[in-house]
């Protein structure tokens, strides 16, 4: 669209760090505009006064800046040509490739009618026992990694993405360091998977508020492939904590009353709008979301992980196991809510009981460790638990494991038989008699 058909204004009434206000007529809520050639969006209309949020910030904007209204909210051109491409937060190519032609679709579109959803039912194997055995993933699920900033969450996520059997992988990178961005790029390239990957990236060098567009861009592309093309799509969102931080900046500059941890009161709804895009469509397509929420020193009571946990279908908690020196998927704090949909149905009959017993014995080991640290004598059972825990952690919980689900179950039975007697397991007799290793 050429400038000639758009409404242009040149007088700002007020300027704050993130917003400008001006008298304008006919502006619609949520529509895009440029202020002094910087992208902005209408966030408030009051009588004749229109307030615009300027994504990159308002530094240097003069009161006589040129404001051009576009007449439409943020949008993305969708077509099969998206595959293999890298874009910025506005959906513009950053890989020197041509502009993508296709149907223009507004981002942040409507929700799926819950009645028309299909129940997720397909297992996504990752080879990591901490996930497949204890916290099985299902297509159509939404689940974040909870990890401290020093943990290798992006690597684990890339690994999971490449092992998963999906048609498209869409990366939404928010506040990625340039190094991490290049890491993803090279991992995807060397796996020869580039043609099924689409990336929307905002790096730390770019303004934080731009990040707010990334999830909606990524998910609009995902909906195109999943709903229109019936493909299985995996969306990776990293790091959602930085996304929430950007929300916090905007609400603060808009003078909103903050709630817990100075986050906006609407944080739950804002995050839910993104995560709830995960869906199994009746026609076979699906959107699975794996995200990263970085924690501050493992604190999950902070508003960001806390609200996330209430929205997502579980969480995968990364932890350094000091006893074995490995990064493990913490079996206590991790959970996949959808695992019951596939456990014992698409996996072996003993899966559920083996999983629970394995974790319970690991928790007995944690108690024994506390006793040891407090200087008490350990019982024979305690000692067996501790030995079991080390082997369980190394052979099953560690993120560098890559085995099949049957191997995982057999390994668990091997450990049970090695360290415990049948009565200590509390597993149904029919399974113990079938799988116990003599």
């Amino acid at each position, binding site marked *: 669209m050429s400038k000639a058909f758009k409404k242009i204004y040149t007088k700002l009434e007020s300027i704050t760090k993130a917003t400008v206000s001006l008298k304008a007529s*006919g*502006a*619609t*809520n949520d*529509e895009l505009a440029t202020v002094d050639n910087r992208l902005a969006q209408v*966030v408030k*209309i*009051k*009588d*004749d006064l229109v307030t615009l949020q300027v994504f990159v910030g308002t530094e240097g904007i003069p009161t006589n800046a040129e404001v051009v209204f576009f007449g439409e*909210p943020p949008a993305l051109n969708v077509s099969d040509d998206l595959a293999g491409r890298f874009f910025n937060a506005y959906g513009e190519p950053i890989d020197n490739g041509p502009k993508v032609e296709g149907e223009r679709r507004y981002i*942040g*579109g*409507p*929700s*799926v009618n*819950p*009645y*028309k*959803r*299909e*129940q997720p039912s397909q297992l996504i194997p990752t080879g990591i026992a901490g996930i497949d055995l204890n916290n099985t993933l299902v297509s*159509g*699920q939404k689940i974040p990694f909870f990890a401290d900033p020093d943990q290798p969450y992006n690597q684990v996520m890339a690994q999971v993405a490449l092992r998963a059997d999906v048609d498209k992988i869409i990366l939404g990178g928010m506040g990625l360091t340039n190094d991490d961005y290049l890491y993803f790029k090279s991992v995807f390239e060397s796996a020869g998977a580039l043609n099924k990957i689409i990336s929307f990236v905002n790096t730390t060098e770019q303004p934080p508020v731009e990040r707010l567009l990334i999830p909606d861009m990524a998910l609009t592309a995902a909906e195109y492939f999943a709903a229109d093309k019936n493909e299985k799509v995996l969306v990776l969102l990293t790091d959602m904590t930085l996304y929430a931080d950007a929300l916090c900046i905007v609400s603060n500059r808009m003078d909103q*009353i*903050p*709630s*817990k941890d100075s986050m906006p*009161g*609407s944080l*739950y*709804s804002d995050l*839910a709008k993104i995560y*709830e895009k995960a869906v199994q469509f*009746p026609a076979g397509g699906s959107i699975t979301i794996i995200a990263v929420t970085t924690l501050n020193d493992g604190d*999950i009571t*902070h*508003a960001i992980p*806390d*609200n996330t*946990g*209430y*929205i997502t*279908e579980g969480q995968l908690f990364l932890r350094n196991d000091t006893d074995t020196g490995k990064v493990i998927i913490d079996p206590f*704090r991790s959970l996949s809510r*959808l695992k019951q949909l596939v456990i014992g149905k698409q996996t072996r009959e003993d899966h*559920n009981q083996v999983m629970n017993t394995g974790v*319970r014995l690991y*928790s007995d080991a944690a108690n024994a460790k506390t*006793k040891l640290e*407090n*200087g*008490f*004598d350990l*019982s*024979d*059972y305690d000692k067996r638990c501790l030995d079991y825990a080390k082997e369980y952690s190394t052979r099953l919980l560690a993120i560098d494991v890559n085995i099949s689900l049957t191997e995982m179950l057999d390994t668990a039975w091997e450990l049970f038989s090695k360290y415990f007697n049948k*009565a200590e397991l*509390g597993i*149904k007799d029919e399974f113990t008699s079938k799988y116990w290793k003599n």
Partner: protein
Amino acid sequence: MKTTGIVTGITSNLVTVQVNGPVAQNEICYIDLAGTNLMAEVIKVTGDKAFVQVYESTRGMKKGDKVVFEGFMLEATLGPGLLSSSYDGLQNNLETMEGVFLKRGEYTAPLDDEKLWDFTPIAKVGDQVCASDWLGEVKEGWLPHKIMVPFAFEGEYVVKSIVEAGQYKINDTIAILTDENNEEKVVTMVQKWPVKVSVGGYVEKPRPSKIMETGVRCIDTLNPIAEGGTGFIPGPFGCGKTVLQHAIAQQGDAEIIVMAACGERANEVVEIFKEFPELVDPHTGRKLMERTTIICNTSNMPVAAREASVYTAMTICEYYRQMGMKVLLLADSTSRWAQALREMSNRMEELPGADAFPVDLSAIISNFYARAGVVKLRNGSTGSVTFIGTVSPAGGNLKEPVTESTKKAARCFYALAQARADKKRYPAVDPVDSYSKYLEYPEIVEYLQNRVDKDWVNKVNRAKTIIRRGKEVYEQINILGDDGVPISYHEMYWKSELIDFVILQQDAFDPIDSVTPMDRQEFMLSLVLNICDKSFTFETFEDCSAKFKEIINIMRQMNYSEFKSEQFNKYFEQVNKILSDE
């Protein structure tokens, strides 16, 4: 003539409208956005400015858009066909909507107005009637659905005419009533009622005097909920709130279940949509869906409709209550509703209370819980609404406004404990912190004595004491070490573990263990207490734990076996043998 207006301001879904006539608080209006009518509710009026919350996204709205006020509040449509239906928070039928995606401004009728129902009259010409009296009934599935004098009819009426038994549509006239001034009023099978106003039309609201059985042992045995009672389940995420609520919904001894999925995950609702039509109600043998209505406003659906969803659900419950039915309402989660109130209060720039929630949060919550209860109807029958809500406390910390306000309003408290969930001890209901005030009601104690066992409440209290003592000695053992305490401490601890593993823990995914009828609960608790009453002699604390682990293992096998089956009896014999060997 309807009041109209034009849009003058927009902040997210709070819209300011300049009006040209009278408007009422909570009145419904429609905003014309490029040909699509968006529903909104008046939440504040200042001068000729009405502040309305729009139940949809306001993307693309502009100053000058036209608004039409409707002259009524948000209403529920009540009539046959509510059961087995799935609605959004504004009672739009989700099933009849077109396409996979929700379209903005698409509103669908709650009830099918073409369907024919078999009507049988109850009232006769000349009968004196008033609001909520039964005029006739239709069979809704297998339940007798009463057609009542509309709740909005004030004063007394005489039945002037009533149709004969036969097939009618919901909008057909089934009776004509005359009021004191001899004016005629037409009654159909459908009526409307504003959701934020509680339904009256009963004689009295007595104290609850019966238990609503759920088949969940840690509720029925330890802290039972009364029919017509209130309870709430607070817990951090991942502690099994939803699994517990679904278990109650599937097994609850109620005739009607209404589930309000308020601001929660869509996939959890899908589970209900897909599984309830298949699952069988353990009390009647009918399909669960036939007695269930689902109100579903998931977290990604418009926030303003979240608040409406719990009220819509409650109004439907009260409607069935007036037919003399036992209704159970489950709302997951009331915290999301409170958050919706907070978002709006924030946009209205009201002075915030604790954690930025509106200051009247506590009053709003207790008003809502007060709509539950048992009622005695004019014709002598009773109906009830039992309400269980979940609360999602921020950070799992129970000292937050929603939990605290709810604690004042609800009579049963089922605290889900992170520590129990971490140990995979499900359901993770904390046996020490949780309570049921109903166990203090003399009428409930008497009911339990007749229904379960003469000594039942004493047994329950003994079990609770053992659990509490077990927790205390466990702390002692942790401080002093296994060898630092007498062996009797270990015995005490393991007796509490026995109750924990056999009674409290329950496998919600095992077809047998997931539902425990009351007689089985009585049998198992008595057996466990018999073991606890026994004093054992152990050489070492390790002998003690080994012996109890053995007993626990066998009794868990009992829980997995059909009650009093051959297999069950075999394990029962084994327990007896161990005990007699001691």
